[in-house]
């Protein structure tokens, strides 16, 4: 189990689950959870490549730490936007946000 391949498979599964979540979910919070899955699958990739790829430096680890920080910032902003939408529209369902179209 301790090989690059198994980590890449896990990352690929998480990535696909994230995309599936974003595409099928109607709840804005669930969509954001799908996006978090995608970001974390990339994190697993970075760390696995750095650990098993024989890289000279720790670029992959550093990258994943930055991604974690950014994911938190993005989630904070996105949730604030969802709360604001809930106040005005009374729903967090993305189907109810249908004023702009054409």
């Amino acid at each position, binding site marked *: 189990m301790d090989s690059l391949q198994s980590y890449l498979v896990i*990352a690929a599964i998480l*990535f696909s689950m*994230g995309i599936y979540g*974003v595409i099928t979910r109607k709840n*804005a919070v669930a*969509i*954001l959870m799908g*996006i978090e899955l*995608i*970001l974390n*699958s*990339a*994190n697993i*990739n*970075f760390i*696995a*490549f750095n650990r098993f*790829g*024989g*890289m000279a430096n720790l*670029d*992959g680890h*550093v*990258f994943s730490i*930055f*991604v974690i920080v*950014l994911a938190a*910032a*993005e989630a904070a*902003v*996105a949730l*604030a*936007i*969802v709360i*604001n*939408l809930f106040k*005005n*529209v009374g729903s967090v369902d*993305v189907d109810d*946000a*249908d*004023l*702009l*179209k*054409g």
Partner: protein
Amino acid sequence: MSNLSSLSYYIPELIIILAILLVIILDVIPACKKYTFSLSLGAILLASVFLWQSYGESHGLFMGMISIDPFSHFFKMIFLLSTFSIILISRYEKQLDSKYSAEYNALLMIVLLGMFLMSSSINLIMIYLSIELVSIPSYILAGMLKNDKESNEASLKYVIFGSFASGLMLFGLSILYGITGSTDIGVITAALQTIDYPLSIYFPLILILVGFGYKISMVPFHFWTPDVYEGAPTPITAFLSVAPKAAGFAILIRVFYTMFTIDGSVSATLPLANINWPAIIAVASAITMTLGNLLAVQQEDVKRMLAYSSISHVGFMLMAFTIVSPDAVRAIMFYLFIYLFMNLSAFYMAIFASNKLNAHHIDDWDGLGKRNPILCAFMALTLISLTGLPPTAGFVGKFYIFAELFKHQQFYWLAVVAILNSVVALFYYFKIVKSMYLVEGDGAHDKIVAHPVVNWSIILFSAQNLLFFIYWEPLIGFIEKSISLWSG
């Protein structure tokens, strides 16, 4: 260059960072609140002075994280000019609540800092960080009208599309890192020369293109554009349609030209030469401009129509991107610079109309030509330029792109598509001209006068379209100096 010695080449960015912090601090002190507006404008002016002074220098800063070179300087001037103008005009926009003006200006300057980094980053970590630094404040700016349902919806759509696209790009970057073993795009280029399976690079390449394509709103990653542009406050729409798009092109050009070319041309010795990315871009370009134009025709809302028209302009710029040569980069940069003036003046006119008449639909512009003849004449000039007809700078910009396409004798079909598209563009831009001049209004014939700042912004930006038609030589010379990076 080490971190400490890098700082002396990093003064424009440091000024902007200091100004952001000062604006946020002054905002909480009631007596100082009124100075935040002039402080932000002053900081941008000061940053441009320092930027102008350091033009021509070329350094890799912060241990190879970002690169200061004439190419990024050119884009930084576009960013400074557009941010300055947007901060100025936002003060005279009626929709925006002046209570939040300090936060608004601070967020705009954070985006400005992000775009500075975007145009100069040469490391995958910096590329991702800077794209997010531009995106996250933009989500907030799009939803700045807190009690407006359309603005809420625009920011929700923007945040979902934006973080999804950047997530896909991040996954692509992680695979690229795994294949090449480095995050520095120079080292990645070297590693790609000796790669065993060139096919494996397709997957990360396409995922990265999703991230960049979303930033420049290239079809099929454009779905957020019309909704966000319609719902966001008009100054923010104007800003998003120009500055982050230019930043997206800067990073697209830098990454593709560094990774997949040698000295600015596709070399046969490169194992990656069999990856025909110009063909991928050519198809994307044709679809982008056709879809943008066809959907623009049926729009009734002025902002939404300009959103689709901006998508089609991206298609035009991508057309030059299919040719791998420094001259093609020159054509894109020239077009971007012209596009800045055309688009900003068109959106400022929309701000004027919505301020004075509460006009959002094209019908609301009926008879405007009699009520403010001067501004409407300049608006007509802007629309001619957006179409790409002489005597305007838009014609010169399109001319350079077509010239590249014919010079390299590739993708003739793309030129045909582009010419047909110009005809469609003529139709919907002139719907506005028709509404302004040929349709009688609802009886009101009193003159409407714009606030001097709005008035002169429209006139100055629109007049550039004439100026650069007659006298574009200095601009092209300046751009040629800026791309010496690839032309050697």
